[in-house]
């Protein structure tokens, strides 16, 4: 079957299988491998993409459901490698990842939060992000990154080093 949708700001038209998941379509047909697959059960959030601005788990969301909608993946976020989205820059500034496998989903989930609520409280950040797992960092630096963007503070590209973990 054929579907038409908007992918990272550009119109897209694809021939897909009716049973195809959004992650299969994005990773397989569009080669957007920034969409990561881990639990494949809507638990970990690694495959999070935005559909009409809302975070969905691409592992269990049917590709067909994106017809006529706007899909944004991590590849569609930065204007260029030199001009990153503020969340991407904040994740760099705060060392908010290690292996990086959860990072695309983390950033998109955070974007959905900040788009809806530009100045979330600490508890709102925790509640919103609770569906995204990170096994490396212990989450603190991710929360700080989101807070940095919410506060509108531009990072300097260097962590403080001493006591960077305190809050």
């Amino acid at each position: 079957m054929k579907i038409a949708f908007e992918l990272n700001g550009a119109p897209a038209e694809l021939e897909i299988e009716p049973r195809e998941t959004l992650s299969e379509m994005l990773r397989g047909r569009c080669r957007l491998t920034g969409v990561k697959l881990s639990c494949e059960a809507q638990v970990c959030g690694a495959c999070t993409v935005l559909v009409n601005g809302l975070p969905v788990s691409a592992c269990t969301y049917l590709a067909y459901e994106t017809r006529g909608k706007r899909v944004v993946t991590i590849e569609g976020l930065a204007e260029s490698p030199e001009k990153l989205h503020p969340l991407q820059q904040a994740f760099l500034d705060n060392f908010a990842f290690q292996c990086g496998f959860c990072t695309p989903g983390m950033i998109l989930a955070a974007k959905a939060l900040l788009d809806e609520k530009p100045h979330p409280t600490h508890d709102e950040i925790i509640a919103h992000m609770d569906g995204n797992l990170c096994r490396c960092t212990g989450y603190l630096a991710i929360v700080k990154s989101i807070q940095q963007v919410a506060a509108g503070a531009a990072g300097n590209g260097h962590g403080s080093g001493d006591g960077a973990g305190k809050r």
Partner: protein
Amino acid sequence: MKRPGDFRVVNHSVPRSDGVAKVTGTATYTSDMTLVHMAWAKVLRSPYAHARIVSIDSSAARKRPGVIAVLTGDDLGDLYPYYGHAVKDHPLVAIGKVRFVGEPVAAVVAEDELTAQDALDDINVEYEELTPILDVDSALAPGAQKIHDRGYRAGNFRGFDDQSIDIKGNICQEVHIAWGDVEKAFASAAHIAEGEFYFPMIYAYAMEPYVAIADYDANGKLTVYSSAQHPFMVRQDLADVFRLPLNNVRVIVPYVGGGYGSKSYTKIEPLAAACSWKAGRPVKLQLSVEEAFLTTRGDDARVRIRTAVDAQGKIVARQATIHFDTGAYAENSPMVARKATNRIVGPYRIPNVKIDSFAVYTNTVPASSYRGLGAAQVTFPGESQMDELAEKLRMDPVQFRLNNLANRGESINPVARPIDADVPGDLREIAATLQMEKPLPPHHGRSICCSASDAGAHPVTLAMVQVYGDGSVSVLSGSTEIGQGSHTVLAQIAAEEMGVPFEKVRLVGSDTAITLFERSTGASRTTTLMGRAVLEACREAIAQIKTMAAEVFGVAQEDLIEERGGVRRGDKRLTWPEILEEYFQMQGASIVGRAYLRRAGDLQAVPVFWEIGVVGVEIDVDEETGKIRLDSLATIGDVGLAIHPAMTESQDLGAATMGMGVGLFEELIYDGQQLMNGTMLEYRVPRFSDMASNIYLKLAQNQDGVGPYGAKGGGEGSVNPVGACIANALYQTSGVRIRRLPITPERVWKALQEKKESASSSRSPAQVLSKK
């Protein structure tokens, strides 16, 4: 030696060299890769824990359109079909027998993933069930059936001085250490704590499941891309399986989506490679997370331990018997047992010690390395017992530990390197951070626990740096970037030494065809060993360039003055790259500096370094529900020098968070032969909402390690103490002592109920013993 403040690049939290790729989704992991003409493999897995394979009929699968090949234990030709760096007991696909539910019995290679998956249904396997042996007691029972009834060769990287394999019944490995006279010490002790503890089976949950792409080409050369921590170990196993020389096996590791030990050593690479060998095509074998649960887990451990003190609060003896449930194959469990045996002593001076450990085969998922390598399993009982003894002595637990901690230069094990860290200082720092003297709010408890791990593994680490005439530098390292930040740290060291900007250094690796041998990426060794190898390789390159500079200037080397990044004679200054261009009179030429570290000189003593864990927590217990949450968490990285302070702290927090997971909710549960919670729907790992409300990340930088600038490794120490911290803090606030992890709400609630019920008849605190 340069001190903090003297460094230009090192000891600064520079941007990660892999950062932009990771935040833009362009970092390519093995699971993202495809090769030209690539086919896909899927695996048929055993439904039985222990069975003889009577027959396999795969004829229907082979006829299915799109299927290229089927691989079973009957199709292995003249391959040597067993692998294992310690014991070559692991068939790449089941041969004649299955030993756990989930063991690969057959693989189908097809043009696409779905066809391969569907064709698995066409394979008929006839099994004859054998008695499943599902726990350590059954495995050790007199007359128990042997899970492995044939002999095996020792692996090439066994890690034991004794290369012979001595499998007795179902005991895969025994380890014994002893010094002093334990029985005499217990007989005259003032107080003794004694008990049995249980540390659960756990799953590392690296978010990228196991994946390998193998290409056994027509010229007999094998190339494998894999999400692997130890590419050189994988190369050795593949060379043995396919009887290939080492230079015909190339293992390449792209970005790795988490490891935590679970991607140590060989996993699915031999199966993927055999599929490619059979199909004559490049083959991708991508496991799901459910299949990863059935591939490797952490060893569970039952620990019987007793510790004795004198009336002044000095530990006089510790004795323990440890049984690890190793699962169906040895993997790295022999080394887990060996390390746990050393690590149960803790960072303490104990004059009389006797430890006996057993890694025991069972018909469960094979257990192997997990962050901390045996230390988490034994720090929980050891440090629980420290608090029990402090109570008997009516002594503050922090003071009791301080009385017994080894200072730098003191030995905790008569055959090991003396302690190269300031453990008492670390403990005092965490005690001050958590304000241990401050009164506790209701239902709050605090505890600080310690561990000492003989870290670094066997030091054979080779590195090259390539210095270019345009001022750029490549570091060729076989140490794998698994997220810990090693590619950034190694580049920092090269930039510091070569006097070039950090951005001018590129990391190349891991690729066994290009990078020199590095034994492994684990045991927290990379900064210490590869970091030092890179430093020495840079200095060797500089020595070469100095010789060239003397020729360029037409003077003796002694007449040149070395300045940062080059040499000067009179007013004329040339940088290292400029000397190269002058010397070769051509652009583009580069030279190679190299370093070969081995167990010699100051790396002769083992361990390479002691990795210290000192962690403090304050918990809040909801006595209505039994739920524990962390109010405060404090870690300290005693790393000699933090090459990258922010990432060092992040490693400690990540490790402590994993420790909290096992402390509070992580546990693999078997019901009979079946793993019951082998999905992420059911296996609970720490989430955002589990974070401690207050997090303090400290560093101790005393430059007391054998690594570059006195650095030592980190990233595992902070996982070990957390379980005991939670258990001790719970006891402090509620009076219940739980000797089994995880300390779930149900276990806490039950223990509190039992305590209430027994309160009328006895004043002694309730105890939850080690029963499943």
